[in-house]
């Protein structure tokens, strides 16, 4: 496969994956946290919990974490890294990276709008 073809495939997979993240319902929050945590490298369940707690101040309960992990894996946004350890690490896929970027960009746009309106209307209060 040529590099161009590979990039195109990644982009298409990412577009599908970004749409898939929108179907996560109440797991969209945990899923975004997990993808953000995996963005700097593979982690197993407990490491994910501690990392998310560190950067977001949220401790995901075990059941919630694994519900989101299984959905992310089902949507091919993350994948398990082969390991002999009982604690299996997970890593972000190319589709997962695109999905996370698009999702965070959309959230940033919303944050920018909200902060801009707050600045205009509530600056003096």
């Amino acid at each position, binding site marked *: 496969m040529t590099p161009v073809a590979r990039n195109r495939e990644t982009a298409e997979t990412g577009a599908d994956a970004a749409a898939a993240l929108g179907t996560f319902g109440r797991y969209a929050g945990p899923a975004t946290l997990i993808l953000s945590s995996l963005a700097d490298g593979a982690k*197993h369940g407990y490491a994910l919990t501690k990392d998310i707690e560190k950067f977001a101040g949220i401790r995901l309960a*075990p059941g919630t974490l694994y519900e989101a992990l*299984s959905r992310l894996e*089902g949507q091919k946004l993350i994948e398990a890294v082969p390991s002999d350890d009982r604690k299996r690490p997970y890593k972000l896929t190319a589709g997962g990276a695109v999905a996370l970027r698009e999702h965070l960009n959309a959230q940033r746009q919303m944050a920018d709008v909200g902060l801009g309106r707050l600045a205009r209307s509530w600056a003096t209060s």
Partner: protein
Amino acid sequence: MTRGASSRHHAERLLRCYPRAWRERYGEEFVELLVEDFADRPRWSGRTCNVVASGLLARISGAGLTGAALDAPDQARATLAALIGSLAMFLALGIAMWSQLTIGWQWSAPDTPGTTIAVIAMSVVVVIFAVLAVCAAGPVIWTVARAFLHKNAGGLGRPSLLVGVGLAVVIVGSRHFGNGWPGTGGHPWSHQGMVPGGVAAFSWAATLSITSYWMHPSALLAFPRTEVVWMLSSPLAMGMAVVGSAKLVRRVQFSARVLRIEILLGRVAALAMSLFLVAAGLWTLKGGPGPRGLFDTGSIDRFALVAMAVALVVAVHSLRRARSGRRTQLAH
């Protein structure tokens, strides 16, 4: 037992909340996470609730009713399994209700249009259910038989046995108790009902366990002992047949065509369930007790109506999931 060993034991117990396929995939690593969570937060009571709720959700998702989208064939199989479960509950309650009415008609015809229309409509729907059952079972039996013939039936042996034994017990037992009851098969006026006496008796005997007598143990103890044993054992036999059938459809590799046919039959069955429910509701609301109270409704009938409505909602929901699974596959 050390604290670590106790935590692991507790974690392994919590893991049982999840379905087997989930445990096989995530069990080991999930137990490790739980053990570390126990060490970090030994007194956190929310963990058990969280794991139990997630396990339940995983089980419902595994049945194709909610949660993560399955691929189209798997979703179709999950839908069929959910349909079998919901239809079994619906039919057990519905047939119990219908057989009571048809037996009542053998004694005396109903005196209100509500009951008359309801019993006729329910009887028509029962015939539709019987035709649908034959049409749905045919391709499944054919596919399972082919799998056995080609020695490709891994995992199908036990569910097939469950279905076979469960159905055999229900059929033989219902025939035995149906024939033995003087008010039905051997009834002198069995010809004057709108349903053949043997069919009414068989249906009555098959659903004998669905009765309010469970709330009156002293009356129940006056029943012949074999009849009480049948009332206890027949739901188990039906359960075996239902669980075996659900497992079969989850494990058999159906062709896309067979899956389409089965889902189509499922949609017709959901429509039939709706009609039956409307008819049963008509009897409950507008029927009246009839001559000698033969068509009187009781608490158990109102409870059955609610449970049947729940079964219908589950069936419709699972059929919608099958459609969305197919759309997802087409979109890709």
